[in-house]
């Protein structure tokens, strides 16, 4: 990791999106020179700026290791986690840092996530049981292959990079969007879950999977390889099977939900 870019560069220019709704009538960009270090990520540079230059700079972060999902930001126009976007990837600079596209801005790089959170809650991203099995029956067992069915979709850290990458989310207010649909699929595919029908109405609607025109950028930008586009395609196949089956006078064996 450390051997790749040898450079004499001492500093790098950061063009930072600034917007404080109380005082600014409109957003602007401010340029800063920050020290260049080979092992620094964009988040380190932002933290340096906040500590040394301008304490009013606002952005979200927590874990610094690609786990919490809070540091999503547009870096040179591309949705990234600032904690795994190395400065050396963007040499010689400048590096433009903006809030994630498609979301209202609260302040600087801090976006308003209410819409995402509401949609996430709507698809009931938790295990639903018609009846809980009693404690003495033990745990719900799951085979490795049952786990493999949904594991990839369970890796989501809610960073919303996929929303910033999705051209449909930007234009369709009601579209549930990639991560929410991937998480719905994650629970639908879980052998312990029985909540499929409760989620169906929402995810099989136009505003659910059908607004997706398979652009596929969500899967490109996802830092966790969740592949939300694949989850949506799977759900489309399920919905389509169900659509045609619903015209049959009987339910073919194994097809009922």
């Amino acid at each position, binding site marked *: 990791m450390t051997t790749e870019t040898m450079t004499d560069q001492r500093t790098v220019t950061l063009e930072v999106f600034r917007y404080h709704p109380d005082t600014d009538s409109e957003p602007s960009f401010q340029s800063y020179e920050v020290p260049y270090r080979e092992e620094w990520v964009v988040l380190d540079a932002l933290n340096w700026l906040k500590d040394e230059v301008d304490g009013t700079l606002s952005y979200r972060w927590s874990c610094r290791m690609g786990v919490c999902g809070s540091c999503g930001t547009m870096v040179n126009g591309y949705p990234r986690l600032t904690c795994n976007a190395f400065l050396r990837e963007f040499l010689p600079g400048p590096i433009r840092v903006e809030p994630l596209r498609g979301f209202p801005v609260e302040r600087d790089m801090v976006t308003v996530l209410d819409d995402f959170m509401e949609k996430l809650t709507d698809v009931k991203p938790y295990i639903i049981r018609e009846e809980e099995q009693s404690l003495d029956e033990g745990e719900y067992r799951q085979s490795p292959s049952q786990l493999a069915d949904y594991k990839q979709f369970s890796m989501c850290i809610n960073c919303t990079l996929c929303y910033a990458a999705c*051209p*449909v989310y930007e*234009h*369709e207010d009601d579209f549930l969007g990639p991560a929410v649909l991937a998480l719905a699929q994650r629970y639908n595919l879980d052998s312990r879950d029985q909540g499929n029908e409760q989620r169906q*109405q*929402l995810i*099989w*609607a*136009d*505003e*659910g999977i*059908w607004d997706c*025109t398979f*652009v596929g950028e969500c899967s490109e930008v996802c830092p966790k390889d969740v592949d939300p586009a694949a989850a949506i395609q799977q759900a*489309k196949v399920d*919905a*389509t099977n*169900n*659509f*045609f089956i619903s015209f049959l006078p009987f339910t073919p064996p194994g097809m009922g939900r």
Partner: protein
Amino acid sequence: MRPSNEPFWWAMFGAGGMITALLLPVLIILTGFVVPAGGVDFNQLDTLFNNPLVRLIILGVAFLSFFHAAHRIRHTLKDLGLRSVATPLAVLCYAAALAGTIWAALVVL
């Protein structure tokens, strides 16, 4: 939330995608290049295409290809900004596909 009728169009789109990817290039190369170049005798092909079953298959290829294209064009135009006219756009695209299919039926049957 209304149930979507999109599965129907999407199924046609999917089937059409499969057919166009597999059969259309073969048909184009065969009828557009190989036959004119004399690689295959025209009369031989004529006998084949006179078989009612083969005609039906060709009509099927045309039908699914048209609906595949209609669906793709509809959603691309929507993505490009024609959201406010989404419904008339859909009607127009699928009507064009239907017209194409009828035309194909008139030609091959």
